[in-house]
């Protein structure tokens, strides 16, 4: 049996009375890029936010069912959402490094405020390590005290990736990380995914079937809050089981 990074059991999410994730069961193996694709508004972001309990920032949102990360149900009553978020990194659709913090502090802040490092040397090391992992070190090593406003969109997004990696998460969630990035920056981030999956499990939300095909090992197709199809990427693209999936990957469906 393959060890699972993440598994959902009958996951349902409501905003008020409106059910937007309608009982999803999926399994994500370890050390893969798992793409979650589907048209805009189908519930991808909502589902991703259920995976680190970030949905709880929205008092309207309600979750039912289970999300298991490395076997543990993060919605069990004794689980602290703060702990969950420390173990699950997140990268957003809009690159959001903190504008008032330097490049260095953007990477360091999670470690500092969570008290995860013991000395300045350890912090320096971890910041460098994370920036290298995010393939940004060479571009910023001489200006760690600069502010992120001087970086390009793609660099900013890699800075956010470094910020998440610095926490040494078990899983990295990425919500359309290249939606607002130019093609060159997009390519760099996509290449980075191949590197990162050696150590991490990446769940990547994308509304672009082409991107899912390029970068993922497994793909799930979500439509109107329901999981339509899931499988190895090649299989889903070359030989989809479901009519809707076929329409989506060939571009017939929005």
């Amino acid at each position, binding site marked *: 049996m393959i060890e699972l990074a993440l598994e959902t059991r009958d996951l349902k999410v409501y905003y008020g009375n409106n059910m937007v994730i309608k009982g999803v069961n999926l399994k994500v193996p370890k050390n893969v890029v798992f793409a979650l694709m589907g048209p805009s508004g189908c519930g991808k972001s909502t589902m991703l936010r259920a995976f680190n309990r970030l949905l709880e*920032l929205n008092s309207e949102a309600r979750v039912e069912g289970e999300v298991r990360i490395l076997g543990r149900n993060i919605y069990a009553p004794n689980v602290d959402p703060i702990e969950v*978020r420390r173990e699950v990194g997140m990268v957003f659709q809009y690159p959001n490094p903190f504008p008032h913090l330097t490049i260095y502090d953007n990477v360091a802040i999670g470690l500092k405020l969570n008290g995860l490092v013991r000395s300045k040397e350890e912090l320096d090391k971890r910041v460098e390590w994370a920036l290298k992992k995010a393939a940004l070190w060479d571009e910023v090593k001489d200006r760690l005290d600069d502010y992120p406003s001087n970086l390009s969109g793609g660099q900013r997004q890699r800075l956010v990736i470094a910020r998440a990696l610095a926490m040494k998460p078990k899983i990295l969630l990425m919500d359309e990380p290249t939606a607002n990035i130019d093609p060159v920056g997009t390519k760099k981030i996509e290449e980075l995914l191949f590197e990162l999956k050696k150590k991490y499990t990446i769940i990547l939300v994308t509304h672009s079937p082409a991107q899912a095909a390029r970068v993922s090992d497994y793909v799930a197709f979500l439509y109107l809050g329901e999981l339509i199809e899931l499988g190895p990427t090649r299989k889903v693209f070359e030989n989809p089981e479901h009519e809707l999936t076929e329409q989506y990957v060939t571009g017939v469906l929005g």
Partner: protein
Amino acid sequence: MSGYNVRKLKEKLFLFLIGALTVLMFSPLFHIIYSVFNNGIHVILSRRITFITGRLSDGGIGPAIIGTFILVFLASLIGLPVAFLVGVYAYEYPESTLGKATKSLLQIMLEFPTILVGVFIMQMLVVPMGTYSALAGALSLAIIMMPYVAVYTHEAMRQIPFEYRDAAFSLGLTRVKAVFRVLVPMAKRGILTGVLIGIAKVAGETAPLLFTVGGSYQTYQIGITKPVGAIPLLIYTLIQSPAKEHHEMAWGASLILLLIFLGIFIPVRLSLREVKV
């Protein structure tokens, strides 16, 4: 004339009218600044440093200046921390009953007649203590300052795009750390603006001091339980006197007050412009 030309003429007339009304509306402001400078500068130049440091009998307004600084300082000490926390609370719990009530109450407090605050403090503090005091005046001013600072803090926090809130929480920060260590520093310029506007506002207040500070212009008082003076209150007192000499001093005091106000306000405006760039 064709209909088109008539329409164009009407439009021009209308624009001119609006322009004229706008100028009319702001003209008192410029007239105030002009006349305060014009009348005040003579007094200050002729008495020089005595005007700033001297007692009333020496022809100076020193105790009033010190009094204003003491009052504003004490009011800030009392009011700023509370107002800041209230503003953050209203931002962080907008849906809670208390949060909603806070927002409405702040709006009411903002518009509240300031003289009533003075009456309230007189009953609560001055009467039981049996004396006017700097403390009573500072408390009145703190009550007037707080809604400004709280509203500005709330507004500054609300300006922070949601993405940053997401980012802070996604790092596994507790609510307290996410809010106070990440989001508040992000909004610090807006919050600081509120603080300075609150200070500028109360530095010029008269009504809440009428029944609270007592007004002391012949001696420098030490101790927050003693009566003190204040520049706006002194102006009010001097203007009521029939003596021309007192009216002149009032102009001088007005100029000092105006300078203090502008000294706080101009940097605020400049820093606001910086934000937009």
